[in-house]
C-alpha cells in the first residue's frame, strides 16, 4: 500500500502542515506545489496529531560542530542501528531573500537537480535512484536546503555524495529546464487559487508582514514568477549558495572522519562568498484588521494572528508552553475543546507559534460551515481573550508540562526527526546543549510567566483576521 509517512513532507509552518497533512501524500522534492497524487483513502480523526511526527524540535543527542576551511558550519550526530545517513545542506537563501522577485528563491532551488555538471535531469535522477538514495530540495521563508538520504555502503554513499556535490557546485540553469520548471510553478500557483485554505494563508502573511520579506508566499505569485529570467536565478545562486552562507548537517551511521570528508566534499568547492545581512526586524501591524475573501466553498477558512516569536526569543518557552495549553496540544487544548469538543463547529481548531529568524506567525486556525463563521470567530476570540486575561490554571500547566517532558524522547526518535532538529539548531545558531536543557526550560515556566508573556506578546488590539469562504446564505444546501 502506498502510504508514506508525513515526515517526508517539507512544510514550513505547523498551521499549514496541519491542513495539508490530511492528504497523507508524498511530496517528492519538497516543492510546495507538486500536485498531490491519489493516495490511500485514509480518514483521520484529527490530522494535526500527525504534525507532531514531523515537527522539528530538540533532542538530547551529542552534537559535534566544526567549520570547513572555507567557513561552512558542520553539525554532526552519530547514530547507530541502521546503515543509513540523513544529510542536509542549508543556506540563508529562503524566500525572504527574494527581494521584489517573489518566487526567485523557490525556483532557484527547483532548478538545482534539473541539470548539473555534465548531467541532465534524467541522469541525475538515475544516479540517485540506482543506489536507492533520496534527494530533495526546497525552501522556507528563511532557508533554502537540499537533503539526501542514502545507505552508508561506501560505493553507494560515494555516488550519492558526488551527485549532490555537482548539483551544489555546478548547476547548469539551462534555459529549457528553466522554462519548464517555471511553467510548472505557474500551474501550481494557478491551482492554489482553487483552495480557500491557500488563499487564506497568502492573505494572512500579507496582513501580518506587509512589505517585510516574510510578507509574500515562498513560491511567489503569477505576476512575479512570470517575470523571472534564468539569469536572475544564476545571480541568486552565485550570491547565496556560497561557503560562508552554508551549513551542513550529518546525522547517521558515519564516523566523524567520514562526516568531515562528506562535508568537505559537498561544500568544499563553493566559493567563500559572503553571508548576507541579517533580515530586517518585523514591524507590528498598526491596528487590528479583518479581511474577508469571497470564495464559493462550503466552508470558511479562518486565520487569526499576528507576528509572534523568533528563535532566540527569551520569551520562547513561556509562549511555547502557554500555546500548548491554548491550542497547541493535538487532541487536548482549550481551543480544541471549545470549538470542536463542546460545540462541534470544526474538524480542526488549533493555534501555533512558528518561530523564525525574525518573528514568525502566531496563528489560530479553524474551518467551519459558512453560516457558522461568526459564531466560531466569537468562540475563538473569547477563548484567546480569556487566556490572555487569566492565563492557564496550575492544573493545566502541570498537565502540559507532563505532556511535553513525558514525550520528550519522541521528538527525536527517528533519524529523520533528529536531523531536522539538528538542522534547526545549526541554522538558527542555537546553543548545542539546547536539547539537553529543553526540559529544564519547560519546567521553569510558571502560570505567572505565561500570563506575563502573553500579555506583552499577544495583543488582541493588533490581531489580523482573515476569512475565506462563501457568504452565510449560500452555505448549506
Amino acid at each position, binding site marked *: *500500500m*502506498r502510504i508514506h*509517512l508525513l*515526515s517526508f513532507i517539507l512544510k514550513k509552518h505547523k498551521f499549514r502542515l496541519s491542513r495539508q497533512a*490530511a492528504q497523507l501524500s508524498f511530496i517528492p522534492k519538497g516543492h510546495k506545489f507538486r*500536485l498531490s*497524487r491519489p*493516495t*490511500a483513502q*485514509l*480518514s*483521520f*480523526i*484529527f490530522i494535526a*496529531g*500527525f504534525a507532531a511526527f514531523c515537527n522539528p524540535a530538540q533532542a538530547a543527542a551529542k552534537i559535534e560542530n566544526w567549520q570547513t576551511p572555507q567557513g561552512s558550519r558542520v553539525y554532526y550526530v552519530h547514530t*547507530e*542501528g541502521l546503515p543509513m545517513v540523513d544529510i542536509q545542506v542549508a543556506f540563508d537563501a529562503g524566500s525572504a531573500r527574494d527581494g521584489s522577485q517573489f518566487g526567485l528563491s523557490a525556483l532557484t532551488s527547483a532548478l538545482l537537480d534539473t541539470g548539473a555538471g555534465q548531467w541532465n*535531469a534524467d541522469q541525475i*535522477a538515475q544516479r540517485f*535512484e540506482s*543506489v536507492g538514495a533520496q534527494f530533495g530540495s526546497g525552501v522556507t521563508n528563511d532557508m533554502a536546503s537540499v537533503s539526501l538520504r542514502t*545507505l552508508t*555502503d561506501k*560505493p*553507494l554513499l560515494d555516488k550519492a555524495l558526488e551527485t549532490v556535490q555537482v548539483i551544489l557546485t555546478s548547476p547548469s540553469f539551462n534555459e529549457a529546464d528553466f522554462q*519548464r520548471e517555471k*511553467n*510548472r510553478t505557474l*500551474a501550481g500557483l*494557478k*491551482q492554489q487559487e*482553487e*483552495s*480557500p485554505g491557500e488563499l487564506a494563508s497568502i492573505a494572512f502573511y500579507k496582513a501580518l508582514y506587509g512589505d517585510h520579506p516574510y510578507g509574500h508566499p515562498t513560491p511567489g505569485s503569477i505576476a512575479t514568477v512570470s517575470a523571472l529570467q534564468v539569469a536572475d536565478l544564476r545571480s541568486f545562486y552565485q550570491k547565496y549558495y556560497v561557503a560562508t552562507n552554508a551549513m551542513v548537517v550529518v546525522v547517521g551511521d558515519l564516523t566523524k572522519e567520514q562526516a568531515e570528508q562528506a562535508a568537505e566534499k559537498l561544500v568544499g568547492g563553493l566559493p567563500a562568498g559572503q553571508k548576507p545581512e541579517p533580515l530586517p526586524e518585523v514591524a507590528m501591524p498598526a*491596528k*487590528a*484588521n*479583518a*479581511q474577508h475573501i*469571497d470564495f464559493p*466553498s*462550503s*466552508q470558511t477558512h479562518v486565520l487569526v494572528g499576528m507576528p509572534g516569536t523568533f528563535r532566540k526569543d527569551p520569551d520562547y518557552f513561556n509562549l511555547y508552553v502557554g500555546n500548548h495549553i491554548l491550542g497547541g496540544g493535538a*487532541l*487536548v487544548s482549550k481551543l480544541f475543546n471549545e470549538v470542536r*469538543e*463542546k460545540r*462541534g*463547529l470544526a474538524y480542526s481548531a488549533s493555534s501555533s507559534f512558528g518561530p523564525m529568524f525574525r518573528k514568525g506567525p502566531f496563528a489560530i486556525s479553524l*474551518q*467551519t460551515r459558512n453560516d457558522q463563521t461568526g459564531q466560531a470567530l466569537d468562540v475563538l476570540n473569547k477563548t484567546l481573550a480569556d487566556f490572555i486575561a487569566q492565563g492557564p490554571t496550575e492544573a493545566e500547566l502541570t*498537565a502540559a508540562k*507532563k505532556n511535553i517532558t*513525558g*514525550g520528550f*524522547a*519522541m521528538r527525536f526518535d*527517528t*533519524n529523520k526527526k533528529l536531523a531536522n532538529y539538528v538542522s534547526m539548531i545549526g541554522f538558527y545558531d542555537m546553543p548545542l546543549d539546547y536539547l539537553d536543557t529543553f526540559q529544564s526550560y519547560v519546567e521553569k515556566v510558571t502560570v505567572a510567566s505565561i500570563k506575563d508573556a502573553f500579555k506583552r506578546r499577544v495583543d488582541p488590539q493588533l490581531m489580523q483576521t482573515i476569512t475565506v469562504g462563501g457568504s452565510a446564505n449560500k452555505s448549506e444546501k
Partner: protein
Amino acid sequence: MNNRLLCAALLVLPVFASHAAETKVSEHVLKNGMKVLVKEDHRSPIAVSQVWYKVGSSYEPGGITGISHMLEHMMFKGTDKHAVGEFSRIIAENGGEENAFTGDDYTAYFQTMEASRLAVSFELEADRMRNLHLLPDELKKELQVVTEERRMRTDDNPQAKMQEHFNAMAYTNSPYRNPVIGWPSDIENYKVEDLQAWYQRWYAPNNATLVVVGDVQPKAVFALAEKYFAPLKPSELKPLKPQVEVEQLGVRKMTVKLPAKLPYLVMGYKVPSLKTATQESEAYALEVLAGVLDGGSSARLESGLVRGKQIAVSVGAGYELHSRLSTLFTLEATPAEGKNVWDLENALKEEIAKLQLKLVDNEELQRIKAQVLAKAVYERDSGFYQAMQLGMLETVGLGWKKVDEYVDKVNQVTAEQVRDVALKYLVEDKLSVAYLEPLPITETKIEKGVR
C-alpha cells in the same frame, strides 16, 4: 553501465540481510482470539502501540457508508470507566501522542509513549474495545465535526471530489465504490442504534490485532496483553459477504464539472491485489510496473511526460498491492499549459503500449529494485511505519509474514512478467477514465474592515 548498476543493487542486499535478523516479529494469540505482534526496536526508549480492527468502509452496506469512520470518532467519547475526553487527557498527561485512522479495509487506533507506560495505553484500549458509551448528545456534535471534515477533505477540494465520483463509476458492485468518509446523506442520518450495532458486530478481541514496536521485550508485552486484553469476551463473528466485483465489459468515461483552475485526468484499470491474485507473482509484477512508471524522478512518467514531451505538469501511477479486494491500477495527471486531458490520456496510453510491446531493460529494472531495497532500510527508521505495515497486512488477511517476503518477491520479478501483466490487465475494456472540467470560480471580492 549495466554491470555497475547491478553491483549497486547487489551491494545493498547483504546490508539488508544482516540487519533483518534483528527485526524478528514475535507473535502470541490470546485465548479470546486476539493476536499480539511485537517487534523490538531499541534505538529510542519509546514504543508505539496500535490496535487494528478488521472493519472499514469496504465492510459497510448502503445507507450507512462512512459508519466505520464515524465510530472511530465516537471511540474517544467515553466508557463505563472513563468520561468523555478522559482517554485523550490521560494519554497526554503521560507524554503520549495518539490518533486513529480509518481506511477501506481497517480501522486502527494508536498511541506512542515512553515504553515504560505501555500499560496506560493497553488499559484504555481494552476498556473501549468492549465498554464504549454511545450517547445521542455526543453523536449530534461529532456528526457536525465529521461533516466539517468532509467539507474540508472532499467538498471544497476539486481533485478529491472528482476522485470520489471516479471510484463510484469505476466499481460496479465492489464496496470500494464508496468513500471512506461516507456519502453526505448517509452521514446526516446515522443513528445511535446504527453505531451501536456496528460496534457490537466488529469491536471484539477476536476481530483485532495488537501491534507493538519499540523498546520492549516480547515476553513482557505478552504478559501485559494477557492482563488487560485476555479478560475481554470474544464475539461470534458473522462472516463478511464477499461482494466480488463483476467483470467490466468495456471502457467507462465521465466528465466531472467543478469550479477549479486546472483540468485533471484520472485513469484506472481493474487489477487484482496480492490478496485476490490467482498468482502472487502477478501482483508483485504490477508493483514493479508501478515503479517503472513512477518510481522516482528517473521513472518513465516524470522523465517522459513532464520533462521529455512536457505534456504534464504533474503525473503519477499507483497500485494498492495490499488491498483486501481487487483494486485499480491508477494513472493521474495534470496537463501542462496549452495541452489538454485528451493529449494526456493518449500519452499515458502510449506508455502502457510501450510496456506491452517492449521488455523493460535490465538497468531500469535494477534501479526499481535498488530503491525497494533501500526503502526497506529507511522504513525501519520509523517504528510507527513498521507497526503500520504489520497491522495492515494482518488485517487485510494476508498475514504479517508477507512484510518479510516483500523485498525478495519484488526482486524475483522479471521483465517478462511486467510485460505480461501489462498485456493482461492494462487493456481498454478494463479501463475507467475521468476528466475534470474546470468551471469558473466566482470573482474574488476582498472586503476590509477594522474589527
